[in-house]
């Protein structure tokens, strides 16, 4: 499926610690400067905040030294830096709007870090997950259908993707990203031979047989179902994209991407014809400056245009944290966190953040290349692709490259479910990368021979 390369057997945990210090430093400076920009004093609660973030980072670092010494040294610092920057921006918007989201976000960060740590400690080998392929499928269905239950489900901002118990609300669909990635990887690693070998060649593309189209049609119908039942464009796009990406990784067939794009185009066109909110998104994307679209009470382009104005106001180096007006944009700390960041840190800061995402995705794909079993390849590749697609969909929506959809920027945006999910993804990638970079054990040099010597077993499940 891919080339296996030999890695130098270095754990690089020391490098990770250095990068962590730098990452926490960036986050703490950003957090402190919010206060400086708003009222000339370093932010209140800076020691608690900085200490909290550093403690979380050190906990994961320590656990990695203990349980996954060969895990990728870059994943954790990048995640900590993004999470910390997100906290700073959310704190900044708290000051502007009088809300108190930042402490909640820090709490959710702690929960996320605990979850990632639990993944690294409890899951000794990622291949164990393959046993739960169909459990993962059932869990995904349950998670996706939970918000539709009459008592539990909540409709917030027109999308029925939340469940609520008392004051707490949670998006189970976020966790479904992970279970679906596990299911797709486990299913396709078994089914890829039939999906990649049979078929006729038409115009240089090897088309699959008609009866092998089943799985991709089911995935497509499922994501259309999400769109229809929950009115959530972004999630439906994400699930279908994840499936097509893992299918391509498993089969190396460009024809699957072509088929996926055709199905996506068809689905998008039908959705555009049928659903008012899809039409609003598209008109807001094409003509955001049309006064009629801009002033529309619900689903207009006000938010998008204000975000663009903010980005323009930021310019090359930004207004400085606390000196811009990111609070004018509705949902500035969740859906439009990228616009807030771009206004106050400028193009230079925005590009640095996008570069961090790029590194995150690259490490995930690199892990997929490095790990030796097919399931691990597909799982790591699928998880990395989810992060990439999510970044593209959010950044593309905010920057008016594609129509806006309701996804969140991983780690940056305010929202517990998303943060928790992304930390679990980091935990899984750390675990898989440990397996990918771990050198093969060298047993004691006993006198070898066909009858006496132990055959080398890299790791047993």
């Amino acid at each position, binding site marked *: 499926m891919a080339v296996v390369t030999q*890695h130098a057997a270095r754990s690089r945990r020391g490098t990770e610690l250095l990068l962590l210090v730098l990452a926490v430093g*960036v986050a703490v400076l*950003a957090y402190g*400067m919010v206060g400086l920009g708003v009222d000339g004093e370093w932010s209140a609660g800076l020691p608690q905040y900085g200490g909290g973030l550093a403690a979380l980072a050190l906990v994961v670092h320590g656990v990695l030294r203990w349980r996954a010494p060969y895990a990728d040294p870059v994943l954790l610092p990048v995640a900590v830096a993004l999470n910390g920057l997100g906290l700073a921006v959310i704190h900044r918007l708290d000051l502007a709007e009088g809300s108190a989201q930042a402490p909640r976000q820090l709490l959710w960060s702690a929960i996320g870090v605990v979850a990632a740590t639990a993944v690294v400690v409890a899951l000794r080998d990622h291949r164990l997950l393959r046993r739960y392929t169909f459990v993962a499928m059932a869990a995904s269905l349950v998670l996706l259908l939970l918000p539709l239950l009459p008592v539990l489900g909540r409709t917030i901002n027109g999308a029925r993707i939340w469940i609520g118990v008392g004051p707490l609300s949670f998006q189970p669909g976020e966790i479904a990203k992970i279970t679906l990635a596990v299911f797709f990887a486990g299913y396709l690693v078994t089914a890829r031979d039939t999906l990649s070998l049979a078929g006729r060649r038409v115009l240089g593309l090897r088309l699959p047989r008609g009866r092998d189209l089943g799985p991709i049609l089911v995935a497509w119908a499922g994501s259309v179902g999400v769109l229809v039942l929950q009115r959530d464009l972004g999630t439906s796009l994400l699930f279908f994209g994840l499936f097509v990406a893992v299918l391509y990784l498993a089969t190396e067939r460009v024809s699957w991407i072509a088929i996926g794009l055709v199905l996506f185009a068809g689905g998008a066109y039908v959705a555009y014809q049928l659903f008012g909110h899809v039409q609003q998104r598209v008109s807001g994307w094409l003509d955001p400056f049309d006064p009629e679209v801009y002033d529309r009470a619900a689903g207009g382009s006000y938010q998008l245009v204000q975000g663009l104005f903010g980005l323009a106001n930021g310019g090359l180096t930004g207004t400085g944290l606390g000196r811009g007006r990111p609070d004018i944009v509705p949902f500035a700390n969740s859906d439009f966190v990228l616009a807030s960041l771009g206004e106050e840190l400028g193009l230079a800061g925005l590009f*640095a953040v996008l570069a*961090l995402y790029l590194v995150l995705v690259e*490490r995930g794909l690199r892990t997929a290349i490095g790990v030796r079993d097919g399931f691990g390849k597909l799982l790591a590749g699928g998880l990395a692709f989810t992060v990439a697609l999510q970044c593209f969909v959010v950044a593309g929506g905010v920057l008016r490259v594609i129509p806006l959809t309701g996804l969140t920027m991983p780690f940056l945006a305010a929202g517990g479910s998303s943060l928790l999910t992304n930390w679990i993804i980091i935990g899984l990638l750390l675990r898989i990368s440990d397996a990918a970079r771990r050198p093969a054990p060298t047993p004691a040099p006993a006198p*070898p021979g*066909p009858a006496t010597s132990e055959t080398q077993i890299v790791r047993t499940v």
Partner: protein
Amino acid sequence: MSELTYTVLRLGLLVLLWVLVLAVVGVLRRDVFGTRVVARPSEGRPAAAGRPPRAARDDRPAPPPEDRTVPRQVVVVEGPLRGTGLALGSAPVLVGRSPDCSLVLEDDYASGRHLRLFPRDGRWWVEDLGSTNGTLLGREPLGAPAPVEAGAQLRIGRTVLELRR
């Protein structure tokens, strides 16, 4: 606090952010500027193999280096995993479809634990572990464990392994 301090801090934050990005990229230098990928020779042009993997170069007690017939790595030259390679150190190597093998084949005609390569008296030997479809060493079916030299080819189903220096 003066405006100057704030401006310095504002730009300092951006600089620090980029220092982080560049430090991360520095750690990944090998990924960014080209990875050590095992050579995938085109068919018919054998063994223009690249440098041996690092693991074989530094820390493993390799077989005596002056002997040019002793293989140092095993490379898949035909089959779904073409291009994949594995260094032969001092430990035996298990080849098969089972995920706990050192070299996991994706070949329907291979058995879970198909064969193993092991060092003995300064040479490498190959032993078929009772596989269903058998192994060919060169053109001969492999019966009892046999010594192999660099250049030998092992056929397992649709996969061909070549031993290289």
